[in-house]
């Protein structure tokens, strides 16, 4: 084989390949991905891929080869869970469910966006609603809007039953959600500190 061709067929292997992560992929049932024949139907059906850098097939391939960069990229958070890829995959790979599992592993490794963390911790865990209306000031107009339709200011949900919020929190504690979020916060803080340290060292280096 000529050098010329060799140059093009060599594949770069991602440095961050980790057996720990690969094992997590396997435990999550992601080995179903091995049935993938790389046909590209998922990518071709994807409304997100039409406007972002997210490529379903390439995320699937990275997961398949244990390439952990798939967890760090914001790409897997660009999936709107429309389920087209899931429906159309000729190999019956539940692609959307695989993306959701990848996201679960990403959160476990501390890769969760700030906006998602706030939503999970300060809103959902704290109130039991993903979109609440109980803030005394910030949500005043929404309660008034309810009343203008002859509805009570707060709905008969967790918002009207404080003990139901406690109940949800007990369940979230028992199932490990609180611990998951706390751990993710720690990992995020650690990564941030490391990045800052490297940046600082770099500027000092440059000064010399």
């Amino acid at each position, binding site marked *: 084989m000529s050098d010329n061709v060799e140059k093009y067929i060599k594949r770069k292997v991602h440095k961050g390949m980790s057996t720990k992560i690969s094992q997590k992929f396997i435990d999550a049932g992601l080995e179903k991905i091995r049935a993938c024949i790389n046909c590209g139907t998922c990518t071709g059906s994807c409304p997100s891929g039409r406007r972002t850098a997210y490529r379903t097939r390439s995320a699937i391939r990275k997961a398949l080869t244990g390439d952990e960069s798939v967890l760090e990229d914001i790409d897997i958070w660009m999936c*709107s869970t429309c389920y087209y890829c899931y429906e159309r995959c000729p190999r019956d790979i539940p692609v959307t469910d695989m993306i*959701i599992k990848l996201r679960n592993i990403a959160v476990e490794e501390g890769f969760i966006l700030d906006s998602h963390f706030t939503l999970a911790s300060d809103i959902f865990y704290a109130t039991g609603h*993903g979109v609440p209306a109980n803030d005394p000031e910030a949500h005043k107009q929404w309660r008034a809007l309810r009343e203008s*339709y002859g509805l009570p200011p707060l709905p008969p949900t*967790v918002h009207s039953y404080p003990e*139901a919020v406690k*109940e949800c929190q007990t369940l979230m504690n028992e199932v490990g959600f609180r611990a998951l979020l706390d751990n993710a916060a720690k990992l995020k803080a650690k990564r941030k500190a490391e990045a800052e340290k490297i940046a600082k060292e770099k500027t000092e280096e440059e000064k010399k």
Partner: protein
Amino acid sequence: MSEYKWRYAFFLGCVIPNRYPMIERSIRDVFEELGAEILDMPGASCCPAPGVFRAFHIPTWLVIAARNISIAEELGVSPLTGCNGCYGTLRDAWYDLEHNPEEKKHVNELLAKVGRQYKGNFEPKHVVQALYLDMGLDYLKDHIKHKFDDLKVGVHYGCHIVKPSDKRPWHGEYENPQFLDEIVEITGAKSIDYKDKYMCCGAGGAVRTAVKEVAADFTREKLVNMRDAGVDIIINCCPFCHLQLDLGQVEVNNFYKDIIGEPFKIPVIYITQLLGVAMGMDPNRLGLIKNHDLKGVSPFIPIDRFLDIVKEQII
């Protein structure tokens, strides 16, 4: 005294009660009028959102969903939701638990700690499913008083009402479902075909929270296709799509003003708002006339254009 033909436990979710209460009002009123009793589900929480909280931690999603379903079970009826996201969660969780006894056992061990039990004996239903499959088109037709022959509708299904199709009641149909168009057309309105009609609104899967511009770009594509087809209004069956098409329309007009030409101003209306007004109910109560002077609340795109088109029929 029970004159009701059907009974449902109304699972409100978050967006309907807390951002679009006119949708809550219209579902309650239309179901009452159709002879369906709507029961409240005391202490229900977020479903939890399938593309968001399920994406963070599947076990949390499953146990909270099971708790919500168990509240309806105590009332002895199916949970009924007007939201595609809640439907996705309640239906998928129900399906998964019914197909996985181990998981069901584990979920019940957790629920026991708060004195609850999940049985799985009531199928979670969508408002549109109840209208179309439980009541049926003929039954609905008998309640229609006004026909809106001049109204051209862009129907938006959203995703989770039809997909994943193996966990939905539409016999595997997901490429070209017609049930929502058929409900729209009993009001005399025309459902106008438009390019990529079944495409996602862009809000789901935590995308809206992650990057609003990306969600709005999905919406922009939908709005362009609807405008090209000449629709007067959008009809949908999900409050999160509703929010994305309404508030998102304002965002599209802002983020993409350089490429869209004229700003969009297509009224966004939920299916039971349309059905209610066709059934002769008060457009005020259905949220089709602004009856307050609150600032910064829904709807964000004015809906007067809708009443202009139908006013001769409803007077």
